[in-house]
């Protein structure tokens, strides 16, 4: 790398980014172990996450491309340069790019050699390194992860307390886990090779496990934690095999000292995969689909989504941070990151898109018939992630990442607001048990409204811009998929506001757990939410530019902004096509229609469920979540456990029985021979006579001459 000294020092600081939250967690561990300074636990983690948020934002700006669009972002070029760019590319976001130029080895920053894989055929040692890969995609993810994490951690310092302001049991543990999570998520995002990605991948899964099971004395929480970890492991199994297969294919191809598991190397040689196959499956398809398995688990997509609704057993900040804004987006990030591989296989892309479409509709319908506020939000998360997968399948990872970025803000806002409702209602979250909270929780009402509008795709809010980009790109790629997405967007607006109206409209009533007068949150919890609300309104404008003379939406806004120029500086390969302004108007209309219909049916927060009366068994099917949990149990869990029992029985009887039988043989022979040794003299004499006779006969037989 040709960098000035100052840049090198700076980058060393930036490379330390993930370590600060980890340091915070370790400090909490030390506090807990020594029993001293426990009061500083939350501050240690807030501090650690704060430092990495600062470094994340600096990194984001330092990655700003030199050449930007003609939209007034030229000042970005003066930002600090972290990465020595490859050949500067002309911004051309509307056309597909060749893959090789995107995976630039100079973006890899190696920290140390981690695992040895022996010598390659040129005699150079092949290492799995601990290295970072930093490009535009990393920059976007860093901002999302570090900023949202910081806001959620600050919020948690207020949330994880009882009504008297005393820390909950396990308060320190909670912050230690959060710090560990931010570290893991940053490793996932920064990783420069597949093994390190896998490290972050598994580590965020662990944190998710630990935090879902935070209230471990509740059997549901413990079960949900286990379920999340295991369902994710199913996906990770495929992910690991994808890594193995990638190595198997690329290992003979790459140059000396290059490890095919490094992004830079893998993407450089990605097009050579086209000439290979294994067991009749084309190499790019095999690798992509196996990697996709991991993404399906982590991003809660069909059919591995079953853990996400249950994961809402965790504290609300965890739902906001891990199960909405950051960790669950890892699958989308990974597929976008691996675009150079996925783009080689039309089959894989088609599968990604179909899975996305199934997930979007499935989740939206299930969300229509739930009462648990956090679960409704969880299904909406799944549905929005499915939108991103459809975009990925339509060769528009740029749009997917854009939606990932805006979604993080408004979904975190929604979950934190749901947390506030839950906090005020004495941990009751069932929307049937309360209503009319508008006057009781005025701040939460306002914030929730902003979040719901953004999620519903209300015009000019963050979610609108990114959802529109996905829909319009997909519409161009495959009109059927585009219309399905539009329909799902309608459902999204409808169920979001169903929840909102049930909660805030109608007659004012609380469950008895809420006590006499439910109250609004302290400032430490409100401030992060207001910041997130600002994001939920404005975050979309990073991908929008203003044109005075334009045919685009409202005549002035074009959905192609600084974000698009920024993200092009990455491994993302984009085929972005916009279907024209008509679609933008249409999606705005769809959002408004959904909200309007919800108002008509649920505006007064009815006690009985109008949809259930209307849809009958279909609604009940949605309410029962299509019985997928039961299916998993019958098809997977019980047979496996039965097999285990069978094996133990076999082990005790057949496998061990065979050995015991072998052991019994000498004993049996001994027992048989024992019969000849009974001390009866006549028997011995008879034996002697017979023996001598036999010997003589034998002798006669071998020496017939005698």
């Amino acid at each position: 790398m040709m960098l000035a000294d100052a840049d090198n020092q700076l980058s060393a600081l930036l490379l330390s980014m993930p370590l600060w939250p980890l340091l915070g967690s370790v400090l909490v561990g030390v506090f807990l172990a020594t029993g001293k300074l426990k009061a500083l636990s939350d501050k240690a983690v807030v501090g650690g996450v704060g430092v990495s948020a600062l470094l994340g934002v600096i990194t984001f700006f330092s990655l700003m491309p030199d050449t930007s669009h003609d939209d007034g972002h030229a000042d970005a070029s003066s930002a600090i340069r972290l990465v020595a760019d490859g050949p500067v590319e002309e911004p051309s976001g509307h056309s597909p790019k060749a893959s090789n130029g995107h995976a630039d080895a100079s973006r890899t920053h190696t920290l140390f050699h981690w695992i040895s894989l022996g010598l390659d055929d040129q005699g150079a040692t092949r290492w799995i390194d601990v290295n970072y890969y930093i490009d535009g995609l990393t920059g976007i993810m860093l901002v999302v992860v570090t900023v949202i994490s910081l806001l959620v951690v600050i919020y948690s310092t207020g949330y994880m307390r009882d009504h008297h302001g005393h820390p909950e049991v396990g308060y320190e543990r909670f912050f230690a886990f959060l710090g560990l999570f931010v570290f893991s998520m940053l490793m996932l995002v920064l990783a420069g090779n597949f093994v390190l990605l896998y490290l972050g991948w598994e580590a965020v899964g662990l944190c998710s496990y630990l935090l879902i099971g935070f209230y471990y004395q509740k059997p549901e929480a413990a079960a949900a934690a286990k379920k999340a970890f295991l369902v994710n492991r199913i996906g990770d199994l495929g992910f690991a095999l994808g890594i193995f297969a990638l190595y198997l294919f690329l290992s003979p191809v790459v140059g000396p000292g290059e490890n095919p598991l490094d992004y830079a190397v893998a993407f450089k040689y990605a097009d050579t995969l086209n000439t290979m196959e294994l067991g009749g499956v084309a190499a790019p398809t095999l690798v992509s689909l196996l990697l996709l398995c991991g993404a399906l688990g982590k991003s809660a997509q069909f059919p591995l989504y079953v853990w996400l609704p249950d994961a809402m057993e965790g504290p609300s900040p965890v739902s906001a941070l891990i199960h909405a804004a950051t960790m669950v987006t890892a699958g989308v990030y990974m597929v976008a990151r691996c675009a150079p591989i996925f783009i080689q296989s039309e089959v894989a892309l088609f599968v990604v898109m179909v899975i996305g479409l199934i997930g979007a509709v499935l989740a939206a319908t299930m969300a229509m018939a739930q009462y648990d506020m956090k679960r409704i939000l969880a299904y909406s998360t799944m549905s929005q992630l499915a939108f991103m997968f459809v975009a990925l399948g339509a060769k528009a990872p740029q749009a997917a990442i854009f939606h990932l970025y805006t979604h993080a803000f408004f979904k975190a806002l929604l979950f934190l607001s749901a947390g506030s409702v839950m906090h005020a209602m004495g941990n009751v979250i069932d929307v049937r048990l309360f209503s009319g909270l508008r006057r009781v929780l005025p701040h939460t009402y306002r914030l929730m409204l902003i979040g719901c509008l953004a999620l519903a795709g209300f015009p000019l809010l963050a979610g609108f811009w990114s959802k529109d980009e996905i829909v319009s790109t997909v519409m161009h790629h495959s009109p059927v998929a585009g219309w399905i997405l539009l329909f799902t967007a309608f459902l999204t607006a409808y169920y979001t506001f169903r929840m909102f109206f049930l909660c805030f409209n109608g007659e004012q009533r609380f469950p008895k757990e809420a006590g006499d007068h439910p109250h609004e949150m302290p400032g430490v919890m409100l401030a992060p939410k207001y910041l997130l609300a600002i994001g939920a309104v404005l975050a979309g404008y990073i991908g929008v530019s203003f044109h005075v003379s334009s045919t685009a939406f409202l005549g002035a806004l074009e959905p192609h902004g600084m974000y698009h120029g920024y993200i092009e500086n990455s491994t993302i390969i984009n085929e972005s096509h916009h279907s024209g302004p008509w679609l933008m108007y249409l999606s705005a209309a769809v959002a408004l229609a959904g909200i309007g219909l919800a108002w008509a049916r649920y505006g007064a927060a009815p006690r009985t469920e109008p949809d259930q009366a209307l849809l009958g068994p279909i609604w009940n099917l949605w309410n029962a979540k299509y019985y997928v949990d039961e299916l998993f149990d019958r098809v997977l869990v019980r047979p496996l456990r039965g097999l285990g029992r069978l094996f133990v029985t076999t082990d005790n009887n057949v496998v061990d029985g065979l050995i015991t039988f072998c052991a019994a043989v000498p004993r049996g022979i001994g027992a048989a021979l024992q019969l000849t040794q009974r001390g009866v003299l006549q028997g011995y004499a008879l034996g002697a006579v017979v023996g001598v006779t036999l010997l003589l006969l034998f002798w006669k037989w071998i020496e017939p001459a005698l």
Partner: protein
Amino acid sequence: MGTMHLAAQFSLNALIFLPILAAVVIWALPKHVERMAQQVALWVGMVTLALGAFLWVLGQPQLVGSAETTDTPTLVGETEFAWINAVIHDQQENEVGGVRVRYHVGLDPISSPLMLLTALLVPLSVACSFASIKTRVREYYAWMMALTAGMFGVFAARDLLLFYIFFEFTLVPLYFLIGIWGGSDRRYAANKFFIYTFVGSVITFAGILYLAIRASFLESAGTGLGVIDFDLIKLSSLPLENGLTATEQSLLFLAFFAGFAIKVPFFPLHTWLPLAHTEAPTAGSVLLAGVLLKLGTYGFLRFSLPMVPLGAVQWASVMGALAVAGIIYGALCSWVQRDVKKLVAYSSVSHLGFCMLGMFSLLPFGLSGSVLYMINHGLSTAALFLIVGMIYERYHTRDVNQIGGLARQMPVMAFFLVFFVLSSVGLPGLNGFVSEFTVLFAAFNSTDHLGPSFGTLGATGILLGAIYLLYMTGKVLFGPLKEPANTPDLSAGLTRDLTVREITILTPLAVLCIVLGVAPRLVTDTLDPVLADERVPYSVLNRIRQARDSQIHLVTQTASPTSATRPKSEPLADHVAGPVAVGEVIFGES
């Protein structure tokens, strides 16, 4: 070099003889100072740990700065003298016959990490017995010390017969440890353990004798019987062409298999293990899982592979299939256990399957991953057994249906249990991941012997491993609190949560789990070159390569499709990596 070498020699021999001496001293202690037995044993354990660490450091060239210049890498603490020297000379003082057995010990990078693991686990297992061993205390620690000597001897031995003696010797102390201080079914367990493993190793012994005699024939080049010598290097560098035939090697491999596979324990010869583990006292389980099982895998790596490489190459696919079967079988059996200790015991069957799978990929990183696996399994499973023992000392039960929700009662224990479970399920960042990943990676990429199907089936173990260990964790730690009546029993000086002694036992293991997760190169940097050293004709991978070469030679000569020596290669598109291309990747162009 001089004084350093002397110090190393002294340390290595002290590792073997000091515990024997300690065993005698402890045995001879008068009754009224019985309590001193623990102290003596602990101190001896600490000394062995110090000596072990010293020897390990000497084996790290980057730490001691001794650049390797000689053609054969030197052994740390190498000591050699003829022990049984019944050699017949002719008039010209040439050796024409007889038997020679050497006392030859020394550590190389394969044995030295295992030695250090042993040196670490010995003081820990002594310390973990303080609360639970109340009867026949002197005898107990004397047997522990005897076991220690045997374990060090096995890893240090450079003579096949000496190895065998130590290998068999370890059975005796463990037999008594299980049979006297074990659980309710201890007699049956001890007998079964002893006879099962003994029968296997007798067959191995026959194989050893055959190999040594055959080698002496080969050496004397047809002039009759030469000196029967059990030297490791000599037996590991027998010529492969015009030496032992493929059939002989195949049968010898099976003979070695009998002893080593039972020790591993390798599916389907594992049934003695769950019983022995369940009945053994905690320290016995710790050493059994931590060290003694590795005698089997170490035996395969040290003897089967380099001595009968043709046999290893022929049987590699079968071994891989059994390993995969063991991974899945052990995991599923583990999952339905109610006894936590039995659950961990079955998990060893599954884990050692990984270890063998990596080894019989016969790839460089498969072999080094396999050695890493031995060490990592030793750390995490030993820790799990320690924790199970600590729970048992308090609750007198290991039934997951009788205890539950202990996290609130014992937060420190919960932390350690979750930590070691994570290490055991191969969470990246901890030690288990590196070895698990590399062995599966190797199995998947070993297109000559195993291949993607083996890697895929083996990888289901990473899912199943999480299933049964999280099942156990959830049952023991989470949910509402469940304790049997009149527990926890704190009469033995225990506290509700872990005592300082117990935390001190677990902490070094936890630290090592992190260290080896981040820096596996502490082991592999010295290990990799030794496994594949081009300058050393008897290094494992060189022997495997020679075997494969001679096999290809045979195939081209006979060209018979039914030949037993036909190389087994996974079908793979030619332009990806045929056997030859992969061979080049593995061994470089020599």
